[in-house]
């Protein structure tokens, strides 16, 4: 039974129109980042810039500052890399090593998956402050690295699918657990790492509250913290909106590129765990 042409055409149209509506805000962000101050506040609003003002981007770069841009990369990559280092072996041990209490440990990691981060925001700040880490890269990054539940459970789930025969073979070759992790498990974990990295990079790149609380002052601030004041009416008056939009575009581009190339992994990771841990 073939669907009628009318139904197909309606469906195509609906998919396209709604998709364009979902994408419209982002399209408007890109187009207004190239407008002149007059064009961006013109009425009726322009959807496409009448003339392209590329200088917005140099102004936006000056507004953000190189250090803030670098901080965003340090923050996101720091979290992804450090978490990988501690979560890969732990996930492997929970999946493949038999030891007493592994079941209890699993529960220990699974408990707070549904605890929103902002519930522990105040005590997390207190603990980080007591450790003397507020106002440093360590204080910015390590508390988020500590949220290892998602990564650990994702890698455990993945390592469970590794055939035991592989590990037994390595054991027959007298390989210890650590060699097995380094030379057997980690090289095979590409898909899981890709899924994890794409989700975690997106989330941490877009983090706002923790970087705001943990890094007072300009030295350790990330791009989201620099951009946020522009959304408030009074903030907009300090920086022209077209320059603000260009700054927002600068902060969106890396994550947009990552998403376009890792979309498949991102979706697999989300579906595999049922949550993206936000």
């Amino acid at each position, binding site marked *: 039974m073939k669907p009628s042409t009318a139904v*197909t055409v309606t*469906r195509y149209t609906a998919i396209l129109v*709604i*998709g*364009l509506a*979902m994408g419209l*805000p*982002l399209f*408007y*962000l890109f187009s207004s980042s190239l407008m002149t101050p007059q064009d961006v506040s013109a009425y009726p*609003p322009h959807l496409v810039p009448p003339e392209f003002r590329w200088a917005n981007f140099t102004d936006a770069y000056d507004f953000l500052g190189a250090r803030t841009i670098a901080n965003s990369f340090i923050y996101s990559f720091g979290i992804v890399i450090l978490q990988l280092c*501690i979560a890969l*072996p*732990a996930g*492997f*041990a929970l999946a493949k*090593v038999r030891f007493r209490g592994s079941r209890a440990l699993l529960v220990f990691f699974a408990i*707070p998956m549904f*605890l*929103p981060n*902002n*519930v*522990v*925001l*105040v*005590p997390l*700040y*207190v*603990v980080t402050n007591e450790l003397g880490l507020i106002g440093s890269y360590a204080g910015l990054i390590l508390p988020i690295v*500590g*949220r*290892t539940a998602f990564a*650990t459970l994702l890698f455990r789930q993945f390592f469970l699918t590794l055939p*035991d025969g592989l590990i*037994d073979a390595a054991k027959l070759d007298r390989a*210890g*657990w*650590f060699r097995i992790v380094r030379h057997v498990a980690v090289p095979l974990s590409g898909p899981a790492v890709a899924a994890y990295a794409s989700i975690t990079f997106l989330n941490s790149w877009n*983090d706002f*509250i923790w970087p705001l*609380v943990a890094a007072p002052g300009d030295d350790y601030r990330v791009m*989201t*913290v620099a*951009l*946020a004041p522009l*959304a*408030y*009416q009074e903030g*907009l008056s300090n920086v022209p*909106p077209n320059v*603000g*939009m260009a700054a*927002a575009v600068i*902060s*969106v581009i890396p*994550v947009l590129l990552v998403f*376009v190339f890792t*979309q498949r992994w991102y979706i697999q990771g*989300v579906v595999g765990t*049922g949550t993206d841990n936000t």
Partner: protein
Amino acid sequence: MRTKSAEAKTGREGRAADTGGPRPRSADPGRGPARRRFISRDGTAAAVMIAPNAIMYLLFVIIPALAGVALSFYEWNLFDDPVFVGLANYQDVLTDDDAWAAMVNTIEFMVLGVLPTVLVGFVLAVLVNTRMRGVGTVRVLYFVPLVVSTAVASVLWSWLYQPQSGIFNYLLSLVGIDGPAWLANTSWALPALTLMIIWMSLPLVIILYLAALQRIPDEIMEAAKIDGAGAWRRVWQIIWPNVSAMTLLVLALQVLNFLSAPFETALIMTQGGPIDSTTALSLYIYRVAFEQGEIGAGSALSMIQFLLIVLLAGGLRLIHRVRVRGA
């Protein structure tokens, strides 16, 4: 003794289920004293592999969670010595009109946001779940909000919401409606923020529903078509009941989402205003703890928020159990 063996049994069963079958005999490291030694060596290896992870997790998740409970019984401004005050913080918080107003706002965010997000997400997932040519490319448009941070979305949407030159009011003017000053209007600011949060939340809902939809066997849909069920009936009488397990998960995630998302959004876009009309519970907690420097009261409020989550999660589980039993 009995509990111990029962525990070991469930442990093994769980593992067998995880790997999709019983473990091969060869993986069993022998019996007797030799086995004991082997297990202890594995235990050491496991400990070394898990320790760094567990320590970080303990330090920055478990300890803060417990500290939150403890701090809620103290009066503390971060600098002086904390003073134990028992339940006084809870008393203060429960008689605090602003806290109740924040609670009402939180409920309003949830009522306006949760069901529309789940329903619209479901409908959009059904819409784009097709093998028609070119849809794969267009589908990416539906995931666009994923790449946008709350900060960027806020900058962008506050501009779309501009009363004089914003796109929303321009579109409304085309149909003859004089749009309000969205973010500066006490009755429109909260719905305006909710709409933006819905936009930001849809991709995740769509992704999860797409996964559930692709698990529905083709035969069921074919059979329904042959029986003459129209598109509408197929969606609500076949597809919707078939994804009910996912709906429950999506619902739980969105309840959590609308409990937390208005925090960042309102802090950035309206700073809780105008006249506290968008101050959600989590934003109020932030205010009390970080702006007024009352760590204890902030922690007590966090505990209440946590209790709320537990209650909501418990309610959702109950619904699930009743429905499973009914089916």
